[in-house]
């Protein structure tokens, strides 16, 4: 603590510099990891509401059988855009924002290793999304072939070039962000912050960054080939010209499956920070947690074809990909059991971040189990392209990734702002979210098992009741997120309750030794780290 106080004093003159900055200099020209982290998080929240509004259109149309509100092409645009915006605009930037804010403070670094590139990584994103969303207003309409962009369907859209360029920009942004995170974690740790003493969140981001480096260029390559097929007379995926559309699926899912883990590994890191804090115990099996994340990342490269069982793969390949996919349950199980073991016998309290973390463990496990069902080749032939798949990945991504982002926001916002959020409204937000998200997505399992296909605006009357329940859940879950917005606005601008430096009684780690809010520049001189200050300072061999 004394060490942190000394740093605060040292950093005071740096803070004078930022007080002289005007709005443009501070936010547009920013090279500070905390400000850029804030920009990412605000952008992500905006995209979350834009993507959410597309979801509301989808659920409104599906409220009753028959065509109600929108044209089929517009419905397809909504499903496509909803996915693209939520994946690349909401979930990924939110994790990058959290990483930007927390990683340097957690490892004792003064900032990200490449601050100007950090600024560029962020500022590319608004242009990429402006470009992509603008296609909705173009005469030919936006992309409507699904976020997977399978040719030849995706090539029929008039906006292919816009979307491909937007994806290139997002990819460049992600790759630059990943380079920055790898360079920061590997080189800028304070003395004493050994790799196996780093917080699990930092580990999860290091592994995620390597995944990004390995797969984002593959996506860029895939969409580049789509572009050349459409405009430059190549035939990579054109069967008439000797190409093969199935090859696109292989290349896409070689990116796409690790992408799923890019969206969940940082969530694992967040949950591994929150549960020990509110259980007031160190995480159970720290090394096992780290190796489990690494194992999941490795396995993510050898399971891509489980998205393609129905295309007619060789039987040997189907069996290989089925077993490889089922293998992922092992390290995932290690993580779930270790979270439970951390809570076991702990002195637990149930503040909002902990409530979200516990619901993550339970509901993500449901998504994991339905994933295991989808891994079975014979079963997948029935489930493929049905609402069962939609239910599965929304349990993983909404009650998984997004619940973890919300948990992280409640957990760290007192540190970021220096103010406590309203615990009452946080809990109101949690209980509304957790109830309505299940009303929204659980019935979709039954719809899928009964054979309702995904990505259709109309359906058989037999599916009417579950769709109506799902839509009601969707509207109320969407409305619940306005509470989240209200809690954040209140905390940032109106909360009178000051946060302490440590904020939570059970919090351990370097970031909690800084003031709340932390100085604009922290750790200009590397801190001296003592094991007892670290969350994982005494790791058993």
């Amino acid at each position, binding site marked *: 603590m004394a060490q942190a106080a000394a740093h605060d004093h040292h950093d005071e003159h*740096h803070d004078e*510099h*930022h007080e002289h900055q005007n709005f443009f200099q501070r936010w547009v020209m920013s*090279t*500070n990891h905390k400000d850029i982290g804030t920009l990412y998080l605000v952008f992500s929240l905006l995209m979350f509401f834009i993507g959410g509004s597309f979801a509301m259109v989808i659920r409104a149309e599906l409220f009753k059988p028959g065509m109600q509100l929108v044209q089929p092409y517009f419905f397809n645009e909504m499903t496509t855009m909803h996915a693209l915006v939520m994946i690349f605009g909401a979930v990924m930037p939110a994790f990058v924002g959290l990483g930007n804010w927390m990683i340097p403070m957690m490892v004792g*670094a*003064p*900032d990200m*290793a*490449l*601050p*100007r*590139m950090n600024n560029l990584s962020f500022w590319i994103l608004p242009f990429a999304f402006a470009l992509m969303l603008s296609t909705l207003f173009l005469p030919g309409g936006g992309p409507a072939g699904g976020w997977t962009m399978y040719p030849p369907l995706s090539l029929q859209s008039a906006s292919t070039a816009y979307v491909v360029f937007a994806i290139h920009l997002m990819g460049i942004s992600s*790759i630059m962000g*990943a*380079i*920055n995170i*790898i*360079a*920061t974690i*590997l*080189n*800028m740790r304070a*003395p004493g912050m050994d790799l196996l003493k780093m917080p699990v969140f930092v580990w999860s981001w290091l592994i995620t960054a390597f995944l990004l*480096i*390995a797969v*984002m*260029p*593959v996506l*860029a*390559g*895939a969409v*580049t*080939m789509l572009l050349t097929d459409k405009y430059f007379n*190549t*035939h*990579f995926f054109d069967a008439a010209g*000797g*190409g*093969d559309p*199935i*090859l696109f699926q292989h*290349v896409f899912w070689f990116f796409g499956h690790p992408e799923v883990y890019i969206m969940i590994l940082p969530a694992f890191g967040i949950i591994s920070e929150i549960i020990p804090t509110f259980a007031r115990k160190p995480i159970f099996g720290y090394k096992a947690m780290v190796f489990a994340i690494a194992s999941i990342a490795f396995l993510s490269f050898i399971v891509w074809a489980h998205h393609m069982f129905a295309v*007619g*793969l*060789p*039987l*040997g*390949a189907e069996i290989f990909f089925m077993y490889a996919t089922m293998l992922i349950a092992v390290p995932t199980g290690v993580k779930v059991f270790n979270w439970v073991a951390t809570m076991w016998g702990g002195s637990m309290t149930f503040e909002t971040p902990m409530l979200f973390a516990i619901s993550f463990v339970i509901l993500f496990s449901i998504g994991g189990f339905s994933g295991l069902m989808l891994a079975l080749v014979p079963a997948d032939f029935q489930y493929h392209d049905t609402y069962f798949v939609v239910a599965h990945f929304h349990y993983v991504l909404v009650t998984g990734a997004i619940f973890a982002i919300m948990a992280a926001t409640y957990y760290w916002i007192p540190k970021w702002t220096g103010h406590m959020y309203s615990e009452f409204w946080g809990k109101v937000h949690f209980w509304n979210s957790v109830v309505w998200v299940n009303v929204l997505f659980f019935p979709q399992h039954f719809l899928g098992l009964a054979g309702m296909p995904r990505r259709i605006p109309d359906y058989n009357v037999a599916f009417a009741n579950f769709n109506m329940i799902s839509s009601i859940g969707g509207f109320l879950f969407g409305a619940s997120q306005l509470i989240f917005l209200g809690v954040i606005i209140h905390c940032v601008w109106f909360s009178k309750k000051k946060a302490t430096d440590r904020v939570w009684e059970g919090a351990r780690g370097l970031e909690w030794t800084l003031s709340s809010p932390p100085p604009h*520049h922290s750790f*200009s*001189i*590397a801190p001296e780290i003592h094991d007892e200050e670290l969350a994982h300072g005494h790791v058993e061999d």
Partner: protein
Amino acid sequence: MKLGHQTLDAAQEQRVRRARRTARTVGIVAIVVFVFSIGQMLWLQHHPVAHARAVAEALMQ
């Protein structure tokens, strides 16, 4: 040496220099992966027999 607007001490400077070298290496890896992902598809385009055989074997099962 400055990191953004922040003046660093000598030890931190050393770390930043090392980090920039790491960043360059990782950036080169990303470019290689991008080129390879298109390159392997180009190879398949120019070896249609190998590709046709692979597709035929897949469909026979």
